[in-house]
């Protein structure tokens, strides 16, 4: 029982990190019909800029803020320079975003060095609680709470605000939103920057969790995020939360019980979903 609870906490924490990454990916895909293969690059940039400012200032909160700013700035530049020229052309989008991923990843090594960087959990989040026989690591709980807060916040924005309404309408029918007098390009930019910021936050939160960061980490997590987006249904925000938790839990249980299958299980899950239900488990309906 104790074991199961700690595995669940583990899985939820990983799931939340993947969710933060996947949420932006899925919204960008649903609204803009762009699959961003460079999303992992934003993640790893968030991790590095955040962790380096955390190390410099000593404040983890500053680190998170810097990561968010990095995400927003990179998101802005990327949308304008990389995405806008290739709207509507899927093959070019796939090629160009993957190329940008490569550049982002290598740039990390130029700016921050090619070596693995060790990261410590900030003191007030370090350590663990003991409840009965169960040891609960504080930082994992922090990630889970953070993830749910972000989910709640975005759920609120999407369902209760005008911008959210427009984004949801845009996912269903872009042309009609424009014909109702809304500049969809601005909404695209907004969503893209938000998604990038979420990816960057996921990066900085992941760093103390895994204990170390390196440039290739972006690609590894991006693959998990792709899997989540596919399982959850492209464009579905709730779906990505559900699928992220599923992938997180599957990963944590598999890693304990059948370690050599732990990565494979997610890939197989995605392959099965893609082959039998390519629209994902939750479908964002198009109008």
């Amino acid at each position, binding site marked *: 029982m104790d074991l199961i609870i700690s595995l669940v906490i583990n899985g939820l924490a990983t799931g939340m990190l993947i969710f933060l990454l996947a949420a932006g990916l899925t919204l960008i895909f649903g609204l803009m019909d762009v699959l961003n293969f460079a999303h992992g690059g934003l993640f790893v940039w968030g991790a590095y800029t955040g962790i380096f400012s955390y190390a410099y200032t000593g404040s983890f909160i500053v680190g998170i803020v810097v990561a968010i700013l990095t995400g927003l700035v990179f998101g802005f530049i990327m949308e304008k320079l990389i995405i806008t020229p290739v709207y509507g052309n899927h093959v070019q989008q796939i090629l160009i975003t993957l190329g940008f991923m490569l550049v982002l990843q290598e740039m990390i090594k130029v700016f921050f060095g090619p070596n693995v960087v060790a990261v410590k959990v900030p003191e007030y989040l370090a350590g663990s609680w003991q409840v009965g026989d169960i040891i609960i690591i504080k930082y994992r709980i922090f990630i889970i709470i953070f993830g749910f807060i972000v989910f709640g916040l975005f759920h609120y924005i999407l369902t209760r605000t*005008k911008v959210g*309404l*427009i984004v*949801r*309408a845009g996912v*269903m*029918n872009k*042309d*009609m*939103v*424009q*014909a*109702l*007098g*809304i*500049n*969809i390009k601005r909404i695209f930019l907004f969503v893209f920057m938000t998604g990038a910021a979420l990816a960057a936050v996921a990066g900085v939160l992941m760093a103390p969790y895994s204990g170390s960061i390196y440039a290739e980490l972006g690609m590894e997590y991006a693959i998990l995020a792709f899997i989540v987006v596919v399982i959850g249904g492209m464009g579905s925000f709730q779906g990505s939360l559900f699928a992220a938790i599923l992938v997180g839990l599957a990963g944590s249980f598999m890693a304990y019980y059948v370690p050599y299958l732990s990565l494979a299980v997610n890939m197989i899950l995605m392959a099965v979903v893609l082959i039998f239900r390519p629209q994902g488990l939750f479908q964002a*309906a*198009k*109008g």
Partner: protein
Amino acid sequence: MMENLLKLDNVNTHIGQYHILQGVHFEAKVGEVSVLLGRNGAGKTTTLKTIIGLTPATGGSVTFLNQDITKKPTYDIANLGIGYVPEDQGIFAQLSVEENIKVAMKKESEESKEKLEYVLNLFPDLKKFWKKAGGNLSGGQKQMLAMARAFVNDSKLLLIDEPSKGLAPIVIEKVMEAIVEMKKRTTILLVEQNFFMASKIGDSFTLIDDGKTVHQGAMKELIDNDEMKHKYLGIG
């Protein structure tokens, strides 16, 4: 003589490599219901899309309220006061009736509230299903929702693409009544295959064939001209 609200002058539109519109002319006069007629594939729907900027013209000019809107982006055109009801109604299926209309309402002014009240009186069904998802409405209700949504957005001109398509005769009747009523407050440009409907509510007509305007005039003219009806619409 009434003022021209909208004027298309030798409009040409390409979609991909296809030259769909090859010279469309016409004017829509304030307070009238103008009807675009022509057989399937003549370019009527593309004409509406070109006006709203979804398939921008590649030649010629579109003038609205004495402004050249040929190259303007869709949202600018819509904000100048053109409402658009596409052939498939373009309802946001997972949004409720209320939300569908809210997307369109730019500001919560007295005027827009009054307009909303007006259309809800016109289409009481919308009020009844206010919280229902747009995708679960009947065909006729979707048509009404799309018209209401286009109207509340401060529209001086409504572009309506085949409102009668796929609807039962009794529902068509309702939609016709609504258009006649809305005409009191706005100008309407209609694409319609159903000649009976077009002839009853239209003030003027424009005949399009093979992407070109072949005739324009008062609706009465066309009603009496069996030869033209036969040649371009395959009726009579």
